[in-house]
């Protein structure tokens, strides 16, 4: 009897662990080979986040509504969790239904630039390309030490406040006025068809190959 109970507990525990492992696998960033270059006192990267757009997201570029891409870049010493540099990029694209052109705004460390392009592919390249983007001052990257660049790109991210608004119905209670008779103190556990609203349409996580600054020869 006891052994059967233990077996059930073990099966339940294994199921939970398997689920957790499945969840972890989906969070893992993709490894991507990126190009790094040092010019003056700044370190630059060249890569792209085009995979952020699948076919549906690409097609939606011509739906007349604004699409926003937010890209965050962190430079980490290999094996460490504290970044030594951070960069934030913001891109927005809108299709002008009557003018039949794409307007693109690119905001980054060098300011804000506006582009008007004819084709969707050009607009995609502008919002997802990272061409010689400054990621760190070289002073933060000591010679001969290995670093990695982590990139998180989000398509149409949502603010925490909007998420709170969207998910507020979850904590609205059972309805019917004021909670009484113990319900006021009750914990929040509920069973319902709970289709999660993601906090961005799509998210792409990338990590670069380890890189280092070579000490110049004297």
């Amino acid at each position, binding site marked *: 009897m006891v052994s059967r109970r233990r077996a059930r507990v073990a099966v339940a525990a294994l199921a939970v662990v398997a689920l957790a492992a499945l*969840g972890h696998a989906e969070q893992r960033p993709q490894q991507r080979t990126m190009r790094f270059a040092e010019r003056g006192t700044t370190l630059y990267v060249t890569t792209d986040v085009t995979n952020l757009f699948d076919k549906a997201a690409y097609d939606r570029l011509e739906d*007349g509504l604004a699409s926003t891409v937010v890209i965050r870049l962190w430079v980490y010493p290999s094996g460490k969790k504290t970044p030594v540099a951070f960069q934030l990029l913001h891109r927005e694209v809108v299709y002008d239904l009557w003018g039949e052109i794409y307007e693109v705004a690119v905001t980054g460390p060098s300011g804000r630039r506006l582009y008007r392009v004819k084709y969707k592919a050009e607009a995609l390249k502008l919002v997802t390309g990272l061409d010689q983007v400054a990621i760190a001052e070289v002073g933060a990257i000591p010679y001969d030490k290995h670093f990695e660049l982590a990139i998180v790109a989000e398509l149409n*991210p949502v603010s925490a406040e909007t998420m709170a608004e969207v998910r507020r119905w979850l904590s609205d209670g059972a309805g019917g006025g004021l909670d009484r008779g113990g319900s006021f103190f009750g914990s929040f556990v509920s069973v319902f068809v709970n*289709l999660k609203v993601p906090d961005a349409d799509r998210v792409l996580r990338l990590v670069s190959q380890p890189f280092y600054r070579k000490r110049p020869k004297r």
Partner: protein
Amino acid sequence: MRVHRPGLLACALAALALAAAAPARAQAPPPGVSPDLLDPEGSTGDVGSALGGAIGPVVTIEDIQIAGNRSTSTRLIERSLPFRRGDQLRVSDPRLARARWKLLALGYFREVDLALRRGTRHGQVIVTVVVAERGTVALNRLWFGTSAVAPWWLGADVGDRNFLGSGLALGGGAAYASAGAIVGARPQWAGELRLSAPALGGTRWGAHGAISGQHGSEPYRVSGPPGSGDADDLRAFGYRRLGVRGGPAYTLSSLSSVVADLRVEAIDAAVPIAPTRRLPDGRVTAIDLGLRRGDSRVVSVGLGYTRDNRPDPSLPHQGTRVEVVGELGTSLLGGSYDFAVLLGRYDRFWPLTHKSALGLRLAGGTVIGDAPRFDRIHVGDVDRMLAPRVMGMTTALTAPLDLLGTDNADTVYGEVGGSVTVEYVYQWWRRPHRIYGGDLFVAAGVWTLATTDELRLRDRDAFAALPVDLMVDVGLRIDTEIGVFEFALANALGRVPRW
């Protein structure tokens, strides 16, 4: 015999102060980096909008076309959009982006897609909204367990947030508890039916109404030491309750609302004449069962305020929830009881790292005057290691664990009570499908519950007269496609007999 516990209270206050002063992040960001940008798991929505500027042409909305809604009325959807036909706006206007989220916030749809297409004249556009409806039926609460008072009990509360696509929320619950071997006990059952309209005519005003009934029996102690499990030490009396309540609600902002209601309830209670209890030392003392014998009425008005800005109420890691409820029962309106109730609840979460958070949960209140028994604070409300009431019915008289030796087993209903809990949450996993996430949590706190008499007629200071004890909990919260579940030690303890 209770002991003075100034040290314990000082420790609790110190823990609270530490919790309040906890840093927002464990690691300091590099120079020039705003801490709110550092979370690789988090979203940058606010950052995006802050850096963006208006681009694209100005257009006039010629028409709004809605498709995909099989049961939800088109008018209801149109009313929820933040723009109207004829409005002029830039295509990058946040109102267009927000429209999708406004519709998702209704909780009726799993997918909302917006698009623009050319109208009949230059500069005019037609907004098309395609929705995919979702199941809106929810199992709000589930009650079950076993105790000496009720060998088994079972109940459920279900609701539909979008009843027949009308936008009305219809819900209700039913529960049954069998009778234990206590003199006077009988099987108990209860039911409730609720109807609410969250937004009347698309305005900020809502309304709600409910009818509820209970056929119960309330156990009380007539002899033996506090917490004793001997059925001979207990008696029960039967009662019936039938009540209606209703009133308006007003949405103050997207995150806060107020609700008011009027409650009228008829009670028929077979309360014994002059009930007494024989104390372990042989003395006999009168006991207050908190109800009029025979027929009585409760007539009260209540007001509640809620604000909840937690981005994820299922697995919270940040944000605050505040809830305050006040209720006034008076004979001026024809009631038999004059009382006031003030209850408050404050939950706040601080992210420590991108995977962990510290939560502070405060809940408590006070009941003033001659409140009926059911409106007083029950020990299960403040000590989560005990079974909560089931639709207002008592199904267990289990004594709380006396971790501090504070003789806390005597008070089942009190007029002053509350709890302070500090909770550490660790994000185990997050994924976009099916089983969205799991959080492990460890919680510890203190709870207290006392009657006004215990505080007023005391031979020690007020702090010492408050029976304070510890509460600990550990468990796993899982957010899934079919709902939110909590597997907690405290929850399990409250559902099995300990005597």
